[in-house]
């Protein structure tokens, strides 16, 4: 299938066209995943929630009011699911840890300490940090997407990298 507009792909997806929806996945998965990572601070959880958001959106695409706004719609779904996941995680913080299902093991990451340190940041600092460093967005774009001022973004980034350094120093993993 030729790459069409989001509207055309959404209409085709509504008719059950998985190929069309796969193109939407290719086009919108990265921002969806980064939203999940920004909220959750954990790559593995972000992968799970991003996939869940994508599959739910395919089933509920009939609820999309303006098919040209698929990107914003799927990002909102991902954000809400991530927040719910974060609440569940906090509620289960004291529960005994369960083993991951077989087949979901990930290779050891050289940035595991960094990822753990990021997970300990407040989400309102982590999200601009992810958008700035992982999505290659400049400060103005981050400010527009988060609907805050550029000075506000600089303030959050400044605080985030200082706190991240403190966490890594406390872990004994100063870069």
């Amino acid at each position, binding site marked *: 299938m030729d790459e069409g507009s989001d509207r055309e792909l959404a209409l085709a997806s509504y008719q*059950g066209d*998985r190929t069309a929806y796969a193109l939407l996945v290719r086009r919108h998965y990265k921002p969806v*995943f980064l939203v999940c990572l920004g909220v959750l601070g954990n790559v593995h959880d972000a992968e799970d929630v991003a996939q869940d958001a994508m599959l739910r959106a395919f089933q509920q695409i*009939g609820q999309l009011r303006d*098919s040209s706004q698929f990107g914003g719609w799927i990002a909102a779904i991902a954000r809400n699911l991530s927040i719910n996941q974060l609440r569940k995680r906090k509620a289960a913080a004291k529960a005994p840890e369960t083993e991951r299902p077989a087949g979901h093991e990930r290779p050891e990451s050289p940035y595991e300490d960094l990822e753990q340190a990021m997970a300990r940041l407040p989400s309102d600092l982590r999200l601009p940090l992810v958008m700035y460093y992982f999505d290659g967005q400049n400060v103005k774009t981050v400010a527009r997407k988060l609907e805050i001022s550029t000075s506000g973004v600089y303030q959050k980034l400044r605080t985030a990298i*200082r706190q991240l350094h403190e966490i890594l120093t406390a872990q004994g993993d100063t870069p």
Partner: protein
Amino acid sequence: MNGPCPQMQDRIADYVLGALDAQQAEALREHLNGCDACRRYARNLKEQSKSLVAFGRQIEAGMGARQNRVIEALQNVSPAETGTKRGFPFIGGFMRMAIAAALVLGTGVAIGRWTAPRPVDVEQLRADMETSLAASLRPAVQEAVLAQVDQRLQAGLSKNEAKLRTELTGQIRDDVQRFAAQAASNSETLVERRFFEFVQLVEEARLRDRQHVVRALEQMERNRYRDRTEVRTGLATLIEKKPATVQQ
């Protein structure tokens, strides 16, 4: 190990983020040249930034595999709600509401016409409504008018209360003064009358005294005249009876 200068930490973070202008960056570099702790802190933050960028690249590198997993999982998901939940997807909210409103209105009109028993006598209906409305509204209107008048009176009274109090006080003061003046005047009149009566009594007494004096004088005059007459008569008699003796 000493930590970085507290007042320089934000400036160093801005430096790492590339948020300083050339002059600020040069000033910071001069500070870093002379401060080991701040230089070490700046180096750590730079390394941390590089690690973040590298971590981002690693995530980016795995993005295709993640998308593949989603697309693979998509094959096991049925588009369950396709064509079942909504017959007209992607119609804007306003259009849906407009269609729904038209359907509701149309249904209401159809039901109304269908269930209408007979044509309505408009004149009779109007007369009935006027009578009913007049009967039901009259007490309410009266109550409303009375309440409004009462309310306006209350408002007027409260508004003019100070003015009324001042006017009433002034009026009372004037009345008291007028009463006092009148009382004083009445008192003076009474004294005058009493004095006049007293003077009259004195005058009457004096008049009576004068009358007594006049009568006494008249009596004295009569007595003197009678005495003189008697003397004259006695002398005459004496002359007549004893002329020789007298001549002797």
